[in-house]
């Protein structure tokens, strides 16, 4: 389940941690909890979460397409809340759990949204797809029985130039139905 309170506390923790000492501009050790595993990266404080994930952590499923929060291709979860990883510094994350597209499946078992995306062809080139999957999966976490309008609202900040929106909506509604079954 989404824990909004935890997400807000995470900001507070990060601020507290940052206020203790001056860090940067050189690379510094940043601890991140990603897909359930504690990781340590050495990055300049200006590095975004997206850069940390894609670079030293090698989690390239998180995509950068606009790098300014306009397209949502870089969507990940912080304690279950969707954020644009390009709009957040890695050092801001603090104790919050980061979930990326690589962490959504349980072992070989895909998340129902992933399965439905494949079945309903909710993608074309696939570059924006991880971001869409993360937002649609988050939607089902806090609204297990969404309407098409709910899905459109959840993906309202995402761009797909191939135009997969209709199939994304179909797939997400199908995933919701599959979870209930």
């Amino acid at each position, binding site marked *: 389940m989404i824990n909004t309170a935890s997400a807000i506390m995470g900001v507070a923790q990060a601020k507290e941690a940052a206020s203790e000492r001056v860090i940067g501009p050189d690379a510094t050790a940043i601890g991140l909890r990603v897909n359930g595993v504690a990781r340590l990266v050495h990055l*300049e404080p200006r590095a975004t979460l997206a850069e940390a994930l*894609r670079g030293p952590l090698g*989690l*390239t*499923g*998180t*995509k*950068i*397409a*606009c*790098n*300014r929060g*306009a*397209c949502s*291709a870089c969507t990940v979860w912080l304690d279950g809340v969707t954020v644009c990883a390009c709009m957040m510094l890695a050092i801001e994350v603090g104790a919050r759990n980061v979930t*990326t*597209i*690589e962490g*959504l*499946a349980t072992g070989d078992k*895909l998340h129902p949204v*992933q399965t439905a*995306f*494949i*079945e309903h*062809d909710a*993608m*074309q*080139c*696939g*570059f*924006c*797809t*991880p971001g869409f*999957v993360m937002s649609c999966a988050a939607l089902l976490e806090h609204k297990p029985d969404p309407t098409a309008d709910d*899905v*459109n*609202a959840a*993906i*309202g*900040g*995402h*761009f*797909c*130039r*191939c*135009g*997969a*929106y*209709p*199939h*994304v*909506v179909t797939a997400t509604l199908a995933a919701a139905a599959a979870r209930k079954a």
Partner: protein
Amino acid sequence: MASDPTTRTEIFPAGIASVGLGEVKRQIPIDEPSPLAPNAHLAIIGKPVPRQNGRAKVTGATRFTVDVAIPGMLHGRILRASLPHAEIRAIDSAAAARHPGVRAIIPIVIPGDPSSSIVRYIGAPIVAVAAVSMAAAEEALRLIRVDYKPLPFVVDMDRARDSTAPAVYDGASAPRGHISGYPAAAGLPLNGNVRGPTTEVRGDPVKGFAEADLVIEGEFRTQVQTHCCLEPHAIVADWRADGLTVYMSTQFTAGVRHELAEAFALPLNRVRVIVDGMGGGFGSKSMLGNYGRIAVALSREAQAPVRVVLDRKEEQMDAGNRPGTWQRLRIGAGRDGTLSAISVASYGTAGIGLGAGIGNVAQAMYACANFEASQHDVFINAGPGCAMRGPGNTQGAWAMEQTIDELAERLSIDPLALRDRIDLSPTRREERRIGAVRIGWNQRHAPGADSGPIKRGMGVAQSLWGANVQTNCACEVRILRDGSVEILSSVQDIGTGIGTVMAQVVAEVLGLRGDQITVRIGDTDFPAGPPSHGSRTTASITPAARVAASRVLQSLINEAALALNAAPAQLIARDGRILVRDDPGRNMKFAAAAARLRTDRISAVASRSDDYAGFRRRMEDAAMAQQDLGGVQFAAVAVDTETGIVRVERVVAVQDCGRPMNPLLIESQVQGGVLMGTSYALFEERILDQHTGRMVNPNLEQYKLAGARETPAIEVVALENYQGQSATDAYGIAEPASIATAPAIANAVYNAIGVRLRSLPMTPAAVLAALGKVPSRSSRT
């Protein structure tokens, strides 16, 4: 009649399935397989098979070019012109060269060299740097000092046409042919910034207009649209002593290999181009490009792999665009709707490039004996245009399909009935019939008939696109001793799912399931595949895949024949087995037959043969089929006459792609085409500041794109249209799916409010201006 020993006669299914199938006799190459049955009789082809690489895409595992990292890889960045027109007098890179982490600096502009020292648009490359990190490369760029001598510039096409406007080029420097991959006639006159015209005349237009009962005339404008691929243009170049390997987000691996070999004087066997995930191209990633050349040059200079990824601003300024146009179209017609003359004049701008024409919609969509066209390119100080989904015809259809709509109204003939009279294509006739039922055309009311502030309307428009085929196109199919199967080709999957379609074809031949076939594509080490532009990939590669699979199956059957004690001609492959046709109980597993192979694998390579009835025309490695690809789209809109907001509520798209290979993938692609057309119709526009030449919306939030909330309900119908022209009889879908959308919406807007919008995009301001509620915009780019 003497028989040609290299061919044989076969009877193919022909016609549109929903109308009724007939037959056509063809001479086909002796070594090509028998005609493929209509989809209803097939096991895998024509079925909605999910894409094979879907799992990789939804788990983030797909490796796109931006994800490629090679040990020791450097990061390249490009310093770009900050003025729209200037002579570069000097470049000082000394401080950048000393900056920590910088490994190579190469000049693109050479001060003092008249052929190289002029920059003509903001964003033109000047110097490139490779460094150990992106940050170091960025810092180095900021240390480079460029001495500009500003020159007068023009970024507005109307101003650029004026003889007193600053000249973008002089006669010596102007491009003569195509510089951006889009064909442009060579050897045309240049007057100021206006190049051309290319002209075409048929019959006697003067006489045709004199004989007309009425003449409809209109001026139309289309804006500049940018491609906005989600994956930026990206390349990783790895120059080594023994050869060059390039990972590139490209629509044409084999073409880029040729360009690289030529640009860097390398033999083809020393150049390899690879793409796995490819994050959208839409025409803008068909060629090597300046950034590609730069990356390779940096890698050669630094002796290390170099990655160049454009940022979003670079994407918007220097990665191509759909040229803007102004068109004046006149149509003369008789009272019965018969067209007696068509005349079109166009001026278009592809910035500093060529290729801003309006295609062949006016020429070829409708029967008309008398026709004239003159098309001009206008240079302005802006980034070069290039092909973009349905280039030319998308702009041309905007004018033509609205004018036909206007003609129908003036003649008091239903727009569909008028088209039934003047459009000779049986394909589009059937598409109109199907679409009219789906959209509920009989509910359409008179223009502006709704009484409230929100007015609804319905419109229709048609598309025309050539059925392109790449003849330099091959595919290899291998059967391995354990019964596994591989398909190999350099063809790339740009999001259409072509690999899945190839697997369907091969599985159908071998009697296997699609998921039993491994598809290895996007690598020039494999047989050369077609480009993925011009809607030609499926038409080109699927026949080659079927022929290769048939040949390799023959080798396997020869082995099985010994084991089953049957003649090879009696054996067929079905349901994972090789069996005797007339005695299916005598059979063996496919894998058991493969286990008998003498060697670890057998293989066949086949290339795309000519269409069985020949091509309409050939162009080097490419050709155009005899038939066109058509589509008819219907739009239903709601226009808020108080806010000017147009909502597209429904679109019905009825499209022709020959034999539909995979309805699920086709639906995706057509929905995407309709959405791109909707976005073009209502939102998108590159805006250049007249005073600085700068693009003011070089991003993805002020450059407006349709998103989920703007997406209409899109219904897709793919005709089953057999011609008996190749081993699969499949043709393309991507571009025809986008061409008709904007004029269909415009015709629906007219039907809603009774006022015609002739300029794109149809923004709320434009709608309110058309309704006389606000003043209209005066100046456009």
